[in-house]
């Protein structure tokens, strides 16, 4: 087994099976990333769950926007004390869902004080630029074209981890958008260029868990083990758009003037 930080993080995250509502303090492990996945398709839920688990995320998968809001405690007005312990690091949702679309869910999340800082990623089977733009405008962190692949999820994972290490900079930005404040971590220009199939070169029929951290050429940030501070801590609400690393045509880059 490889001796890099990726594997040892994987190991310790397997050892630290912390329940969702049971965490009293911020997790100490880089890999304690909790993702809420929302999709009305059971097949897609199973697949996204697997993709996320392979990248060392804890996953809660629900089948509708309403259930997502319910899970987040946003379906009623009560400000529950439980919410302090509910740590959600990323919400990934399908766009086309009956009842409440992913876009509507996105809006509700961004309207909430407790969860507006949580990055929301939209998935869609349709590469409609107006749709992508609308979601990015509303504050979505990224837009994934279905069918979602491991490379896509790894990329999401990598910018979550990247945010953690930029302790002085805006945590919600993608590394290439972030201002190189006083960190030794240089904003990687294009190491995050991952074309959909490049991460695992060719015969990808079996994947060993070690690979989960080895593909995108991440900087040393993966190896250290400082505490993960939740993206929720971040106070910067104005950072709406982040550009997603290029790759497929679906990744529409929203090039706003960098905040500096």
């Amino acid at each position: 087994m490889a001796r890099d930080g990726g594997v040892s993080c994987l190991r310790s995250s397997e050892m630290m099976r912390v329940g969702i509502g049971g965490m009293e303090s911020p997790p100490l492990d880089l890999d304690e990333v909790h993702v809420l996945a929302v999709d009305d398709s059971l097949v897609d839920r199973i697949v996204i769950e697997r993709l996320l688990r392979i990248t060392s995320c804890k996953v809660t998968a629900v089948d509708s926007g309403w259930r997502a809001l319910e899970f987040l405690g946003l379906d009623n007005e009560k400000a529950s004390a439980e919410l302090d312990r509910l740590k959600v690091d990323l919400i990934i949702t399908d766009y086309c869902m009956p009842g409440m679309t992913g876009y509507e869910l996105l809006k509700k999340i961004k309207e909430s004080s407790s969860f507006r800082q949580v990055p929301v990623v939209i998935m869609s089977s349709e590469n409609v630029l107006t749709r992508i733009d609308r979601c990015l405008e509303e504050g979505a962190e990224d837009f994934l074209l279905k069918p979602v692949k491991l490379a896509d999820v790894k990329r999401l994972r990598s910018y979550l981890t990247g945010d953690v290490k930029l302790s002085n900079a805006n945590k919600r930005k993608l590394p290439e958008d972030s201002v190189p404040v006083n960190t030794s971590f240089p904003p990687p220009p294009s190491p995050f260029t991952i074309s959909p199939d490049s991460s695992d070169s060719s015969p990808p029929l079996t994947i060993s868990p070690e690979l989960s951290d080895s593909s995108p050429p991440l900087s040393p940030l993966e190896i250290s083990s400082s505490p993960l501070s939740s993206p929720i801590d971040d106070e910067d609400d104005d950072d709406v758009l982040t550009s997603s690393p290029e790759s497929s045509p679906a990744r529409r880059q929203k090039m706003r003037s960098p905040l500096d």
Partner: protein
Amino acid sequence: MDAHVAQLQMQYRNYILSLYQQGFLDDQFTELKSLQDDGSPDFVAEVLSLFFDDCVKLVGNMARALDQTGTVDFSQVGANVHQLKGSSSSVGAKRVKGLCINFKELCEAKNYEGCVRCLQQVDIEYKTLKAKLQDMFNLEKQIVQAGGIVPQVDIN
């Protein structure tokens, strides 16, 4: 090396390759296989099983929607096609997905006969795929039972 195992493995390899070559499967299927490991050895089978359940359900819905004496609710048919397109795409069921794309257009055009024909094709196609994949899984089982390991097949 056991000749029997080797022969089964060869058969398996050829079979998989043919499924790709004949357009039954695409790279999303490869992706799913890559997500399977010793810790989750039945992942692909599980997902496919859910997919085929979906097919039964959605085809049933579409058949009922198209069976209206009177006005057919094409948007209802279309909604089911959309779902089937989504799940077929997610598992790499290339032919089924392709049919769904056509089907969607037929719904939008409110082409009744076209929809009925397309639905029949979808029905045949998913059942064909199901049988093919069952054969594939059976081959895997045979290989393992003969003491061999299921080879990784490089489809590139």
